[in-house]
């Protein structure tokens, strides 16, 4: 046990925790916008897989990382439009259609991976980008300021998201659409447009989250490589009480536990490894049970229509 709690190991866990939080952050911040506008998108994991595949495919063929990111976001955009159409226009049950989208993404990414004979070798992903001066700080510099660009952007998005939500006219429309769409509608706000925007943006973020895995963290693509990460991201939105800061705290907590779990295995600490792997998920359930449901957008997952036939 003592082996685990040395300073270098703890710093290592912190470093990995920050790094691993990236895909959760992108996916959960995006999902938070969708949910604040009133739509639950359970397809996040499927979109992430498609995004991860698209980014990896483009990068392994062109070597252009930026193009990979754009490809992942484009895929996210398309899948977001599908989800928006199904939930806003067709007013489908969102839980079910989200799971459909997930299975679609899971299946299609695996199929394309096999059929397009994509390389199974690692690619050169985003390199670490130490921030001058800050990265020279003892200990802290290594933990926080020697990451790749996708990590920095993810964390920078947190205050941006909070600002957009709370201090812009668009953010006000989003909040109103998720809490009382009929009120927004009666003031001439197009609830459909707001929801389209949020769901599609959220899906683009999910695509980006996938890219951050396949060309930022692991630099590989494997079938079902997210192994449910997108669902955890949905849970983090609940855990975070639908606020960007809460989502970030949740993402960090979760990825820290994940990093800890990896270290436990690496260091061969005598805890059954199955138990260690379960740890993050147990945490998720505990977090959801203790979560602040009172903050849930009142019209979450309820389709809106004016009632005119």
């Amino acid at each position: 046990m003592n082996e685990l709690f040395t300073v270098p190991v703890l710093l290592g866990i912190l470093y990995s925790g920050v790094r691993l939080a990236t895909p959760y952050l992108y996916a959960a911040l995006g999902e938070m916008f969708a949910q604040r506008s009133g739509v639950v998108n359970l397809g996040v994991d499927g979109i992430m897989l498609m995004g991860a595949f698209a980014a990896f495919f483009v990068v392994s063929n062109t070597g252009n990382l930026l193009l990979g990111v754009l490809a992942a976001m484009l895929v996210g955009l398309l899948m977001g439009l599908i989800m928006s159409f199904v939930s806003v226009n067709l007013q489908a049950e969102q839980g079910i259609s989200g799971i459909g989208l997930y299975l679609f993404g899971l299946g299609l990414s695996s199929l394309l991976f096999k059929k397009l004979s994509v390389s199974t070798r690692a690619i050169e992903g985003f390199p670490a980008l130490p921030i001058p001066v800050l990265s020279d700080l003892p200990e802290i510099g290594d933990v926080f300021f020697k990451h790749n660009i996708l990590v920095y952007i993810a964390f920078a998005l947190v205050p941006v998201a909070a600002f957009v939500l709370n201090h812009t006219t668009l953010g006000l429309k989003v909040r109103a659409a998720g809490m009382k769409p009929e009120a927004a509608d009666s003031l001439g706000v197009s609830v459909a447009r707001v929801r389209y925007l949020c769901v599609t943006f959220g899906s683009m973020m999910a695509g980006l989250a996938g890219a951050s895995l396949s060309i930022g963290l692991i630099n590989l693509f494997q079938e079902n490589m997210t192994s449910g990460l997108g669902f955890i991201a949905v849970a983090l939105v609940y855990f975070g009480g639908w606020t960007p800061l809460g989502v970030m705290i949740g993402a960090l907590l979760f990825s820290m536990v994940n990093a800890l779990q990896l270290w436990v295995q690496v260091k061969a600490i005598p805890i059954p490894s199955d138990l260690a792997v379960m740890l993050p998920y147990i945490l998720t359930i505990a977090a959801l049970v203790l979560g602040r449901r009172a903050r849930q957008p009142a019209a979450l997952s309820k389709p809106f229509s004016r009632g005119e036939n």
Partner: protein
Amino acid sequence: MTLLPTGRARIDELRMVGITKRFPGVLANDGVDFDVRAGEIHALLGENGAGKSTLMRQLYGLYKPDAGEIRLNGAARRFNSPSDAIHAGIGMIHQHFMLVPALTVAENVALGLASSRGPLLDLDRVSKRIEELGERYHLKVQPDAQVWQLSVGEQQRVEILKALYRGAALLALDEPTAVLTPQEVGEFFKVLRRMAEDGHALIFISHKLHEVIDISHRVTVMRDGKVVATHPTAGSTRERLAGEMVGRPILLEYDKPPVPAAAANEVPRLEVEDLHVRGDRGRDALRGVSLSIRSGEILGIAGVSGNGQRELAEALTGLRRVTRGRVRVNGRDLTHATPQQRIAAGQSAIPEERMKDGVVRDFSVSENLILQDHGHAPYSRAGFLNTRAITRDCAALVKDYSVKTPALETPTKNLSGGNIQKLILARELARKPTLLICAQPTRGVDIGASEYIHQRLLEQRQRGMATLLISEDLDELMALSDRIAVMYEGRLMAVLDRADATPAKLGLLMAGVAA
């Protein structure tokens, strides 16, 4: 062009001509003509389903008319969405407030408006303007308060401020007084008169006759999607307006003989002592309610909704656990009895939420009629339903209580509110109860059916049934009750004899002011 104090142009005349709107199976508006002028309060009167709200929703761009024309100051206009209507200077106060409870007043007002700071919110500026408008129209409200913290009356002020802020020159108010106490109605009417004097055009939609007579200059009466009359309000009586609404003469006041003096050894039908129950959120919803009702007496319970009336009805029908106190029915202790035991003891109930607690929506009329009695003869034997007996008795009940239904097999949800309420009444009164717990018996029910329901309740009173009548409709309470109790925050403020109960007195008590 004449300007309003808000700086916007007046709407001198709005005219809706030949408006027709069809929904599948319903002609909601049939060639409706309606007009309102600057400075006028024009009441739009009609039963539920007469087509008032549909007409207004077309004015506000929520529905598109199938035929007809909307003219503003003589020019034909088309409104494809609420924002078109808002731009044209039309505002609407919806019956159910269109406010987002978790947002502040200023955020609710600013929602959907362009900001002076481009994409950024300018709530300080909005707040300042809200205060200016509030000053001018006596609509005081804290701009940074969250809407859920406000009283219903304050929320209504926010709704009006929202419309004024958007420069509404014409305001359509859909049943605006439904949720207000009598005092709040008085305040609200002052605001409306002020707005009319300033040159706003106001449409006041209601089915409350005395309010229409009190506030409006002209009145248009709608029935079954058509306009049946338009005339100045002055000189109209409630009876005349009611007759126009329903299409036949209507009784608004009932003759009822006084309750006979109590015999020395008479046991009250219902005795409640120091009743305490918890509300849904765990706080005490009833805090020591005591009352008693004699045979042949109707005790009315007045109060603003949410002061414990629902919990009282639930406690007395066995749907909510009593934490302290006693309930006796005909002398028997039924404090903790199940609904079944209460029914067996001669108690019936008309629940507040008829679609939720009164009937099973998807069941047929006859299934709903035997909902409580299906388990024993003559309706079933050894677990098998006796269809013949069911059909026979249900057909008789439907006829007796004039429930309008195409067939006994019709799903109950297809019936109108009034007919569903008659169905419940038939079921509950058929077993000749000695005590009836009756909540909001005519809410959302048209005047014709209301009159019918009232007559049946009075008939049962004559028979000796005791009634606890919970209602938010003061007219109903005054017309039926022998005594009226006022509930406020889980307690009875006072129990008045009907003769002493005036709307003013009741209003004060409802607001928690002891007499």
